[in-house]
Each structure stands twice: as structure tokens, then as C-alpha cells.
């Protein structure tokens, strides 16, 4: 168990009448589940708070505060899962939740040939809190607006038709009690920001420059560290320059990707296909399956020797960092790709047991109290290399730097993908030159990562707020670290 210090405020939830806090409430629910014959039961209370300020074209567009709170109750009964959740805390509603969970388990059981099994864990007890210096909820709104207006001023360009900036704060409190003796509480605080500009010029394609991945599990200090004003200037210059940029030339070429771009590539082409529920076909009808099967572990050539990837729920500040997952499994680190070879999966207790793995690696996560935990990414990262970014660039006689993704599309096995870029810079003889536009590329995943011939040492962490998966939809925070990396002979497509 890991306990983190925090300066986060710990007052009670803003909207408390619906589900009054009572320490024994979750334990009582779990006890009731066991008395009614459940082989396993857990109850999870989740409270979420959110505050956002957005500025559009220099004016405050909105100030938003929201929160929700409820309880999810899960049982394994007659060998099948049943789950029910409510936002009400009265005795009748909670009894109904138990009845509903058992009814759904019984209905599911009538279809099963083998009972659900869980990989074993020892009971966990403890508390996890985000480390932060300044609570983002405590920052005066006027200060947040001033920061966004300063950034907005820098977004103004001759052709900017739409400018936006926002900052947001998130707090999640979770309490999980299981019939196996686990009782853990967590308080997670996240801070995020973004700026965006759209430029339009007669006779040219509109250009957009934006960032939606500036999030971190920490306090307001992260927002200050971002230097939104400087970023806004860069985005404005990019958007204006791209309006007049020449079309790129279709050809196989050397591509260097920023850590920001690679964070998404890692997410889509390694994080998702290593989710164990895809292997078991739990997600086949919607999210799809994988091309990385159990027989391939230790054998499948996923990428070049420069490519190693790791899942790590202990990375400080990661959006996929926690004390325990929603199975109560403590945060841990595991290798997914080892020097180009596929070696590991993201697992929950159920999927680990189903795949014959002795230990779940702690990837069962639910978006909120309303949701059944499913296998999700934590912080899945491309491991850093040993050379500098500058050295990586020096190895490029003729190529492109792709700075941030725009459109992306993947097949249901995460094997065939297409990405376009917001901004592409020409690299000539190791130096960055002007912009080109219209660049996209499609590839098969192992072919793409197999072209990687260098990863720099400038590893940095990125955070995503809304990885989408599951039915019904569950949006999940995940983290991805990466450094600049170079890929040879990648065929690019160009669209005017």
C-alpha cells in the first residue's frame, strides 16, 4: 500500500442529500450480498467534482461546476456477475440495488457454462491521495480567467476566426469495500488546460491548432508550469503559417514524432490491443479484439529493438495513477513490449484468471459509480532511449517532424491505422525548416513500430481525459509517456 500526502481539501461532497455518507453503508451492502449467497460482493462509492472556466474570443464563455455521487454494487452469484448502481442513498433504493444486482446475476448465470473466477489478491486496506501543492479548486476564478485571457491575447492572428482556452479541475473520491476484506479510500485530484485556434483565409483550407491532452494528476502548479501564453503564441504561429504552407510530397520518408503525437500512437496501437478483455472477446462487438494473442506472448515482433513499452499505475502525476484499481488490486508496473517483442497484457482479476495468469496487474477501472469496472489502460508509455532529441534530428537528411495528431482512425484489431497531423515541419540536414500541409499516413501496427530506429531521452508524460470504451460508454483518464522518436521510410499520403 502506498500513502501519498496531500494538501487537498477534504470537505464533504457538495451535493450530499442524495446518498448520505455513512461509514458502514458499504460494508452493510457487502454483508447483505454475502448473506444472500454471493460468492463475491463489492460496493463502491464514488463522488466526483468538476470545475471549468472557458474563454472564447477573449470573453468568458462559461464557468461550470458539477458533481455527482452514487454507489455501485457488484456480486458474483451462481457463477455470474450482476451489477446495479444508484444515485439515491435511502434504504429502499439500496435494497433495490441489491435485488437488481442479484436478478441480473441470475439472468446472466442462465447462459454460462463456467463460473466467473477471480485471480487471487490479499485484502488491502489504506488510503491514497494525490500529491499536490495547490488545490486547483481553491484558485480564484478571477485568476483562472486572467490566465486564459493572457493566452487568448496571444492566439490572435490576422486570420484567427475562433479562439478558445479552458482550465479545469477534477476531484474523485472513491471508497471500495469487498467481501474479501479489502477496504480502501482514494482521493484523486487532476488539473487540465487547453488552448485552440482556428484560422481561415480565402482560398486556403482552414487550419486548427489545439491541444486536448494537457492534464495531470496534480494541482494548479501544473497549469502554471504549462505556460499557456507561450503555447498560445506557438499555436497561432503554426495556424497562420499552415494557411500558406505548400502541400507535402507523397513519398516514403523519415518521420520524427513529438512525445505528444507518440502518446496517442502508443495509446491506440499498444494500449488498446494489450487489453485482456479484447482477447476474451468481451469487447468484440464494439471496441473490437486484438492482433496480440496469448500464443504470441514472447514471440510476436511488435516493433524494432528500440521499442519498449510499459504499463505503470505508479507514475507520479499520471492520469492513470492510483492506489488501487476498482478490483482493489494495488497499483503496479508491468512490461508490455520488451525491445520490440510483445510480452504482457493489461488485466483485471477476472481476465487474468481467464487467461491463466496468476496475478492481475490492476487494470480494472470504472468511470464512475454508475459503471461496471472493465479492463482499462493505466499509464502506458514508450520507454525513453539514450540519445538527445537534437541527435535524433541530426540523423535526418530529409524528413518531417509531425507535431500533433489531428484525425485518427483504427480498425477493430488495432492493426490498421490512419493518422493525420495538425502541423508538419520540414527537416532538412538535421534542422527544422518551414511547414508543409496535408500530411497523413496509414500503416499496420508492427510495420510502423518496426520502422523505429531511435527514441530520444526527452521522455515526458501526457494525460488523456476521455479514453472511450465499453457499453455503455465509459470515459477513462489514462496517462502516456513518450520521447521524440524517429521512424524510417514511412509512406505518407497528402491531401490538399
Amino acid at each position: 500500500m502506498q500513502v501519498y500526502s496531500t494538501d487537498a481539501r477534504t470537505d464533504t461532497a457538495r451535493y450530499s442529500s442524495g446518498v448520505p455518507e455513512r461509514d458502514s453503508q458499504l460494508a452493510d451492502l457487502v454483508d447483505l450480498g454475502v448473506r444472500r449467497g454471493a460468492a463475491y460482493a463489492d460496493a463502491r462509492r464514488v463522488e466526483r467534482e468538476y470545475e471549468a472556466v472557458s474563454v472564447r474570443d477573449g470573453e468568458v464563455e462559461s464557468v461550470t461546476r458539477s458533481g455527482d455521487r452514487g454507489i455501485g454494487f457488484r456480486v458474483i452469484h451462481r457463477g455470474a456477475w450482476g451489477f446495479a448502481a444508484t444515485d439515491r442513498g435511502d434504504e429502499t433504493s439500496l435494497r433495490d440495488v441489491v435485488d437488481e444486482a442479484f436478478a441480473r446475476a441470475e439472468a446472466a448465470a442462465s447462459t454460462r457454462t463456467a463460473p466467473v473466477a477471480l485471480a487471487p489478491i490479499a485484502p488491502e486496506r489504506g488510503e491514497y491521495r494525490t500529491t499536490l501543492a495547490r488545490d486547483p479548486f481553491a484558485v480564484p476564478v478571477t485568476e483562472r480567467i486572467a490566465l486564459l485571457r493572457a493566452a487568448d491575447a496571444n492566439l490572435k492572428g490576422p486570420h484567427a476566426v475562433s479562439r478558445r482556452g479552458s482550465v479545469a479541475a477534477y476531484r474523485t473520491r472513491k471508497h471500495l469495500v469487498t467481501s474479501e476484506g479489502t477496504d480502501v479510500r482514494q482521493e484523486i485530484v487532476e488539473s487540465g488546460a487547453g488552448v485552440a485556434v482556428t484560422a481561415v483565409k480565402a482560398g486556403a483550407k482552414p487550419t486548427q491548432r489545439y491541444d486536448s491532452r494537457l492534464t495531470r494528476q496534480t494541482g494548479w502548479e501544473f497549469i502554471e508550469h504549462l505556460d499557456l501564453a507561450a503555447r498560445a503564441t506557438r499555436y497561432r504561429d503554426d495556424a497562420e503559417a499552415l494557411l500558406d504552407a505548400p502541400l507535402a510530397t507523397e513519398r516514403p520518408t523519415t518521420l520524427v514524432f513529438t512525445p505528444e503525437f507518440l502518446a496517442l500512437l502508443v495509446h491506440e496501437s499498444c494500449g488498446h490491443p494489450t487489453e485482456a478483455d479484447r482477447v476474451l472477446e468481451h469487447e468484440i462487438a464494439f471496441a473490437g479484439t486484438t492482433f496480440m494473442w496469448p500464443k504470441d506472448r514472447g514471440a510476436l515482433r511488435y516493433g524494432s529493438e528500440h521499442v519498449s513499452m510499459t504499463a505503470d499505475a505508479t507514475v507520479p502525476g499520471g492520469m492513470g495513477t492510483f492506489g488501487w484499481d476498482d478490483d482493489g488490486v494495488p497499483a503496479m508496473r508491468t512490461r508490455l513490449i520488451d525491445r520490440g517483442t510483445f510480452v504482457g497484457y493489461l488485466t483485471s482479476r477476472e481476465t487474468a484468471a481467464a487467461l491463466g495468469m496468476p496475478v492481475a496487474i490492476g487494470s480494472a477501472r470504472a468511470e464512475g459509480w454508475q459503471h461496471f469496472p472493465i479492463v482499462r489502460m493505466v499509464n502506458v508509455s514508450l520507454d525513453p532511449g539514450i540519445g538527445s532529441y537534437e541527435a535524433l534530428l541530426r540523423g535526418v537528411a530529409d524528413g518531417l517532424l509531425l507535431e500533433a495528431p489531428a484525425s485518427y482512425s483504427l480498425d477493430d484489431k488495432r492493426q490498421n491505422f490512419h493518422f493525420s497531423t495538425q502541423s508538419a515541419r520540414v527537416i532538412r540536414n538535421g534542422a527544422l525548416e518551414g511547414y508543409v500541409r496535408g500530411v497523413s499516413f496509414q500503416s499496420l501496427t508492427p510495420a510502423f513500430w518496426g520502422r523505429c530506429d531511435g527514441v530520444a531521452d526527452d521522455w515526458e508524460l501526457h494525460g488523456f481525459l476521455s479514453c472511450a470504451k465499453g457499453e455503455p460508454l465509459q470515459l477513462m483518464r489514462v496517462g502516456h509517456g513518450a520521447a521524440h522518436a524517429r521512424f524510417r521510410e514511412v509512406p505518407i499520403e497528402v491531401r490538399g
Partner: protein
Amino acid sequence: MTVRGRDAMLAPLQDALREARADEAELWVHRRRSAITRYAKNEVHQNAVSDDTHVQARVVLGNAVGIAGANSLDPADLRRLIADATAAARDSAPNAEWPGLAEPAPAPEARAYDPDTARADAASQTDAIKRITAAVKARGFRAAGTHQIELTEDALANSKGVSQYAPSTMAYLRALVTSDTGTGWAEDLGWSTRSLDPTAIAAQAIEKAAVDRDRTQLAPGDYEAVFEELAVAEVLRFMSLTGLTGQTLRDGRSFMAGRFGEQVTGPRFSLWDDALDGRTLAIPFDVEGTPKRRVALVESGVAKGVVHDRQSAKWFDTRSTGHAADPRRYSVGGHAGNLTMAGGDAKREQLIHAVKRGVLITRFHYTNTPDPKRATMTGTTRDGTFLIEDGRISRALANVRYTMSALDLFSGIELMGPQRLARDWWSSNGMGAIVCLCPAIKVARATITGSSPL
């Protein structure tokens, strides 16, 4: 599932608004009871129900707007919510283009609601799945999918006297059938469980899976094509997001920008947004309480209009069409979420028969738009991609990547089938909120830009 009803949903809002101290105030509540049964390898692996009541307050001081959200209708929580929204309004700055809250106007009665569907239980959902899996197992295949039933209740009241309430239901049954060599897909969607036919779904998905064997790869190029309804819905989604709202028009990003009255696509293509069509999934007012109106978007290929919420109506000096969307999902500026595309009467066999050499596409996976201004979509196909030669399906194809402007695709419509309720991949699990009444189509040209491995 228990319906709370008009009084239980509206009375707490109206009571809370009476105490609000603001120039304008609004409360919108969206209750969603979602029961979802997921199955894979012929067994249910996830069976969940949740009941959530989201409440949003908008408070206006001067022209400054504050928004707050919670999930409780308790009087004390609603008071706290309005206080939070009021504080947010004080922190906010005046919006010079604030359009004001909606004025009272009657909305039609909700049509997309079935009390029997609202009462469906876990056993009935599993029974429908068992009918599918029994048929699939008999063929030696395996099935996966989802049976989802939702009850929603929306209520909205504001300080100008608007008072709206509507329940709705949704029933969704999907089946992916997998053989040793391929997959096949079928689904039914409607506001009543009576719209769901597990036997027919199983038969359609089995038929496709059985044919999906000995796949070959299709070389990139332009091909004649048959797009089934789900594939058409996927393309329509990008037209909606990139070009059919006041926001995209204002930004100059819409393919409609500067082109109203011009031919933007082929003459066989007509599209409108119509939440009042009794076949679709909708309630008759939007999240601002404005009654929804039918909006002509494209008529015979000519750009006609876009949808507006109150803010975008103010920008364009017009009136809201009732297309304000849930702000948790879509930004201000309107959302076209009930698309209806003109159809025809061609049967599926006729569409296929009209193809000399081309591709049949059942549905897409994880699509996106590399060129929003042209409503260009790229995505890979799945669960039923076939080569058509001389008017018949000749063999199965590995999934292909399709990349093309919707305007170009619809310029080539040659035949259309009858309309059917369909959701794109993104909306099928709630990532998006678009539902389409659209036909299967035969087009002269679809651009294939790549193939997945065999």
C-alpha cells in the same frame, strides 16, 4: 423500470426556481435508467443497470451565465445547485450576445416512449440473447453483442415559465456472429422492444458470417459500392459534426459556408433533421426547452440550412430550431442529432444486382475526418465486407480502409433502399448522440485506400 412521471420530475424544479434570485434561471433534469446485457462467446459476461439523475442549473445575472450540475432532485441539493450556478455567474463575464432563456412554447407529445419497454427486466433481455445464441450455436458459430434498454425522463423549467417533460425509451439488440473464418453483423434499434426481432437478427448475422470465408484483399482504388444503412449512418455523422450546425457555419468550417442555394452534392441526396418523426428516437424539445422543428439541411443536393440553438440563432439573427444539445457532450452552437435521409424502394438484392464490380460495406469501425471542410471520412470496414461481381456477392474481402468526402460519395447515389433506424459506431455506445433514418445505397464510386491483412 419505474417511471417517475411529469409531476415528480417537474415539481422540484419549479419549487427551486421560485427561490432563485437571478435575472433568469433554468433547471434541466435528465434521468437515465440504463439496463445493459453484454454477451460474448454465447454467454452473458456483463449485466448491469444504473439509475442516474443529472440536473443542470443555468443562472443568468445581467448577461453573465453560470452553470452547475449535480445528480439529486432533493430540495436542499437543488438550492445548493442554484447557488453554485449563481456564484459561477458572478464569476463569469457578460455575454454580449446572450440570447436569453427560452420563452414558453408548446411542444408536441413525446412519441418515442413505450411503457412496456420501460418495464422490461433482466430476464427478458437475457431471453432475447438466448434466442440469438441458440441459433448461432446450431451453426457451430459464436455470438457476441449487447441488449440495451433505456428509460429516460427529461424535464425542464425556467423562470420565464417554460415547463416541459418527456419520457422516452430505447431498445437496442446487436449481434456479432463469428465463425472460424469471418464475422457477420445485424442489429435492431427502436423505442420499443417490439422493434427487436432476435430470430431475424441471428439469421442475418449468421448469413453474413457464413459467407465471410476465403477472404481476399482489395487493391486501393475507386469502386462501385453498396453501403448498408449502418455504413450510411457513419458517413452522415461526419456531415452533421462538420457542417450542419450554426457553430461550424460561424467558424467557416462547414461545407455549407457561403454555399446556400448551391448544389453541394448529387440530386438524389436530401437530408433533414426531424426529431418529430414518430419512427426515430427523440424527445420533442431540446435542453433549453425549445420545441424541436424539422429543418431541411440539403434538398436534392442543394445546401438549404443548418440547425440552431438559441446562441447560434442569435449569431445569425434567426430563431432556434430546437437543437441545443447536452453541454456535457457538445459545445454551444447546435447539434443535428436526428438525421433523416431520403430513401427509395430498392431491395438489397437490387442494390447488389446493380453493381458490375464493387464492394459491399456492412459497417465501419472508429472513423474520423482528416478533412472536415469536405466532410471527408476515413475508416475501416468490419463484419461483412464483400466483393460484388456481375451483380452478386462473389467473395469475402479483408476489411478495407475507405477515405472519401461525403459530398463526393452522395454525388454518386444511383439507387436507394427504404429508410431504417440506424446508429453510427460512435453513437452506438453513447460516445455520440446521433440517430439516423437512412437507406442503404448503391453508389457509382467509393474510394478504397487500403486493406487490412488477411
